[in-house]
């Protein structure tokens, strides 16, 4: 996994229109992010072209002009901004794989679904939780097409005229910054797992199948 320290790029807000009002889309689910017909792959790569497929292309496969990731400069976005509960639905890791393959390294939203949140860190994507009001103010700047900087080391989003702090828990931050291999770190604790297994197999032998 690539190490993550600082990302500077275009931020694309995912909006819904109601009358003249534009609002950040809530409940963007993993079926929207990467529809099921693309889950037949046995690889992790190559999913970027189908990110948000049904919102991005018409039935004939032509780009839908009004969709944000089809517009300049957002088609080169590295940051995605969305409403509440981003990534809800299925556990498919194809969702972060497709975001990453498109070039998205950061997702900013008021809240994330649990499994998507975990899956993101495992793939070098930083999900940032912020208050809705703050996100709306970032959205206003993002819509102008300015580049936004996300500095994970200092936990700060740098806008043209101000900085916004964000929280990230230590182990997740470590994992991204150092590009750690989770399995490698866990295997260093293998003797603890052996001990646990020996003890548990005495106390609850039925837990071991057959």
């Amino acid at each position, binding site marked *: 996994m690539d190490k993550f320290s600082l990302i500077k790029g275009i931020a694309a807000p995912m909006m819904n229109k109601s009358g003249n009002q534009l609002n950040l889309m809530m409940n963007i689910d993993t079926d929207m992010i990467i529809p099921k017909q693309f889950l037949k*792959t046995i690889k992790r790569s190559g999913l970027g072209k189908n990110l948000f497929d049904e919102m991005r292309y018409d*039935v004939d496969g032509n780009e839908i002009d009004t969709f944000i990731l089809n517009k300049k400069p957002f088609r080169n976005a590295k940051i995605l901004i969305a409403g509440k509960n981003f990534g*809800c639905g299925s556990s*498919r890791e194809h969702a972060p794989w497709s975001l990453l393959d498109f070039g998205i390294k950061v997702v900013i939203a008021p*809240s994330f679904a*649990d499994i998507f949140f975990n899956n993101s860190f495992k*793939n070098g994507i930083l999900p940032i939780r912020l208050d809705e009001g703050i996100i709306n103010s970032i959205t206003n700047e993002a819509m102008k097409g300015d580049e936004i900087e996300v500095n994970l080391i200092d936990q700060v989003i740098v806008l043209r005229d101000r900085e916004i702090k964000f929280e990230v828990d230590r182990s997740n931050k470590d994992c991204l910054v150092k590009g750690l291999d989770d399995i490698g770190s866990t295997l260093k604790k293998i003797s*603890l797992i052996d001990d646990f297994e020996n003890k*548990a197999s005495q106390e*609850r032998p039925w837990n071991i199948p057959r």
Partner: protein
Amino acid sequence: MSESKTIYDKIWESHLAYEGDDDCLLYIDRHLIHEVTSPQAFEGLRTSNRKVRSPMSALAVADHNIPTTDRSKGIGDRESEIQIQTLEDNCNEFGIEYIKTTDKRQGIVHIIGPEQGFTLPGLTIVCGDSHTSTHGAFGALAHGIGTSEVEHVLATQTLIQKKAKNFQVKINGLCQDNVTAKDLALSVIGTIGTAGGTGYVIEYTGEAVRSLSIEGRMTLCNLTIEAGARAGLIAPDEKTFEYLKDKPMSPKGEEWNRAVKYWKSLPSDEDAEYDKTIEIDAGNLTPLVTWGTSPEDVISIDGNIPNLEDIQDESKRSAVKRSLDYMNLVPGSPIKGVAIDRVFIGSCTNGRIEDLREAASILSGKKVSERVMAMVVPGSGLVKEQAEKEGLDRIFIEAGFEWREPGCSMCLAMNADKLSPKERCASTSNRNFEGRQGREGRTHLVSPKMAAAAAVAGCLADVREMVG
């Protein structure tokens, strides 16, 4: 701090292989595997030259991609075929038990786990599928994981985890006739919202939950993920033990007795504290249906589709506007009577024998509306076999339903079973997301009885009126 513990606390503590300041290593007892979320995990093991630590703890089956028509002709779709073959090859290479597509035990991963006694109380169970929450019905801590975590469990038999908070959903009273576990679940999601459970494990308690059958409890726990919670849990009781006794992989003889004694220690202590509690009265519930494109978009079958001007929150209003446009529904109008084109009965939510019995009880002696194409997809080969033994297949077929082979089918429409654009479906599945059952398809989530009633009426209908 109180010494009292919830069932979640107990299972969590009894599975900690390592406890750090930030993260813990949670030992995983059982791992269910299917074809869609596992190939990249096995590939990762091969690339890193790692082994599967405990092949015996895993059980694999193909369900998502499999055709529900005659399988003697093969899989049909080349990509699906490769994915299913890859699962079989990986299981052979790493020594994991694989239930073949031609085996009568084949079925949806969350249906076969309990059927085989692979699912037991007090275990930690994971699968690369969000509806793993189903197994919480037995008092197991069960949740969905991504493919990186599938690989982590294969290699280490643990997961890096942070403890979630305890959320009690207490459902008091008893359901009226024709109000089912599906309605209870939809009611919970409608009440707390699709993010209402984020950061929590939900424990379902109360008279309505205790009175549910084990299969009803599976439906309730299955839909917990739609409320955003990591897992759903129901304390094991005599019903649980009765269901599991003599299942192929359940403990036997003296070990069974020891296990039951242990399982009886799992329920939450009487004075256990929860971080959050809500109460719902089952007696007031009516059959429910979703109108929108999120499982929280729930109304009573005798209710009206929401009016935009009644919604105060701006982002919610724009979400509702988008949903209503997608669903092509008139704000403020009754949901009952909305014409449908398709009916789907099946899925890990409602593809078990009791679900089929309930649907069949409505269909007996009736015909599916001419405008509707209806199908039943049993959750497993064993469910199918049992249904055929009881003659349920005849009831469905005579009513005009198609009787299919087991699999996930049109719940997620990865195989050939899908809606055409703009088609409207009454579905017993779990997600009404945009495009979920096929691009531009329109899904209304309902119980099996309500799906059967809709099939007969040709529109969303109140099952209570149909049974008189």
